[in-house]
């Protein structure tokens, strides 16, 4: 069976906006993603080397802020939901299949390195920028936060600035 067509982008955006509004109305906060990675990482470090997690500033601050229960975090639950929701969407639209997606012009290995490095930079940048495309840019725009909108402009500005150098990976 062929995959179903993607939803009209404006309609999808409208639904996404309503969801963000509902989230703000119910919880007072926006959507996010990278924060869950941080929670999971802190939990992991705490399990593997409790001594280190207890002494290094970053972990210490995070654990204090979260009552020593890093996984009991709103974003962790939200991201578990994202995985479920995206899976369901793939299921109903026939898009579930295990693939390494890459441009025919590059080797799978190049894509693997690119994805790993890209993820690394995004993870690092999202910590520095206090949020990623969801938490800082989208949610920031919803509440018109100056910092969020600056981060959004920097993300897209940065991507356009560097796009030329990595064009062979995509086109």
């Amino acid at each position, binding site marked *: 069976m062929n995959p179903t067509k993607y*939803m*009209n*982008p*404006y309609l*999808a*955006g*409208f639904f*996404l*906006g309503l969801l*963000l*509004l509902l989230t*703000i109305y*119910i919880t*007072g906060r926006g959507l996010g993603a990278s924060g869950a*990675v941080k929670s999971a990482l802190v939990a992991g470090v705490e399990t593997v080397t409790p001594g280190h997690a207890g002494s290094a500033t*970053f972990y210490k601050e995070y654990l204090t802020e979260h009552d020593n229960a890093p996984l*009991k975090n*709103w*974003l962790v*639950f*939200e*991201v578990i*939901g*994202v995985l479920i*929701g*995206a899976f369901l*969407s*793939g299921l109903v639209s026939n*898009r*579930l*299949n*295990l693939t*390494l997606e890459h441009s025919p012009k590059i080797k799978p290995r190049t894509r693997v390195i690119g*994805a790993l490095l*890209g*993820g*690394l*930079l*995004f993870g*690092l*940048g*999202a910590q*520095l920028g206090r949020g990623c495309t969801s*938490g*800082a*840019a989208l*949610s920031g725009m919803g*509440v018109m936060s*100056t*910092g969020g909108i*600056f981060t*959004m402009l*920097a*993300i897209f500005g940065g*991507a356009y600035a*560097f796009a030329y150098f990595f*064009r062979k*990976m*995509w*086109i």
Partner: protein
Amino acid sequence: MGPLVPDIIGNELNFVVALFIGIAFGFILEQAGFSTSKKLVGLFYGYDFTVLRVFFTAGVTAMIGVVAMGHFGLLDVNLIYVNPTFLHSALLGGFIMGLGFVIGGYCPGTSFVGAAIGKIDGWIFIAGSFIGVLIFAEAYPLLEGVYKAGFWGYPRLFETLGISQSLFAFLLVFVAVGAFWATTLIENKVNGKPNPQFSPVRIYLGLTGIALLIGLSAFILPDRQEAFHNTVSDPAFVQNYPLKEMSPDELAFRLMDNDKNLRIIDVRSPAEFEKFKLPKSLSLTTKNLFEKDFAKLLNLNGKINVFVADDELTAKQAAVIADKLGYVDIRLLTGGLQQFRKDILNFTKPDTALNRREADTFRFRERAKNQIPILIEQNKETGTIKKTSKRVIGGC
């Protein structure tokens, strides 16, 4: 009034809410095509602007919703999370994320979406983001300086720009519509053919129309607070507004009786309040009446809220607003604090009383004149209430 957490929805239930919101979030992103890196980076090479369309539409929709709900008193905007502004790290972090975007083809949220439907590159991206956070965590002592530099507080962009919220929202809608139009032209040029799905004039004109109407209504209609203030700015209206009153004698009696149901709402300035305040009184401004914190406080059952100010009219203006907002058991101190001072605190007994009843009143006032200053002295330290609700903590 929103946000519903933590009063209506508890912190534990909030995690369940998070799960369901996440499911909807993941479903919408996948349906929009955010599970494939090829589509996600399309806007940087001009062949597919889906990300911009979805992202901008969502941002504008939510923004107008927040403005409208705040405007009509459905959401206390003072309590919602606004991302802080740290200029240096916002720009540097954003730039690094942009680089990560064109190299990795995902952002954190979309990598989860891709991973969920079996994209191996999505899983690898997630692994990479763990390493990135680990590097940040380990290098935190080195990065802390830039991380915390350039702190501007929690401004919203219209405040930074010094324009009104409605004007800013309005401008952003126009920028969005302009961007939709321009990028569709670019996209058609790059691809050499128009994509019929991407020129859904009807849908987005419809949505923009609704958005503009809401925006325009917020632009023209004064907001709820302003509307109430306008109503009470007419003294004749306020004077004729029916409200139950409480005489200075009754107030004095209730104070001396230590009436547990009595609460005095003092609407003078906080400075005046500090100089002189009656027992059982709270300092409030009319602005506070619109906040969620005070709504909780004023709705406590069984309390009688007596509004006072130096003169009766000022107190009555606030009391009328409170009444119109639906608060119950509101009373107004007859003649204001001026009358209270004259009748009770600075009472001078006339030489003759007309009748027995008046003689009783005079005797009572003499007693109150002695007792109430003692009560005032005992209650010097109370009466200023601190805000209990804080902004929601959010962010990534």
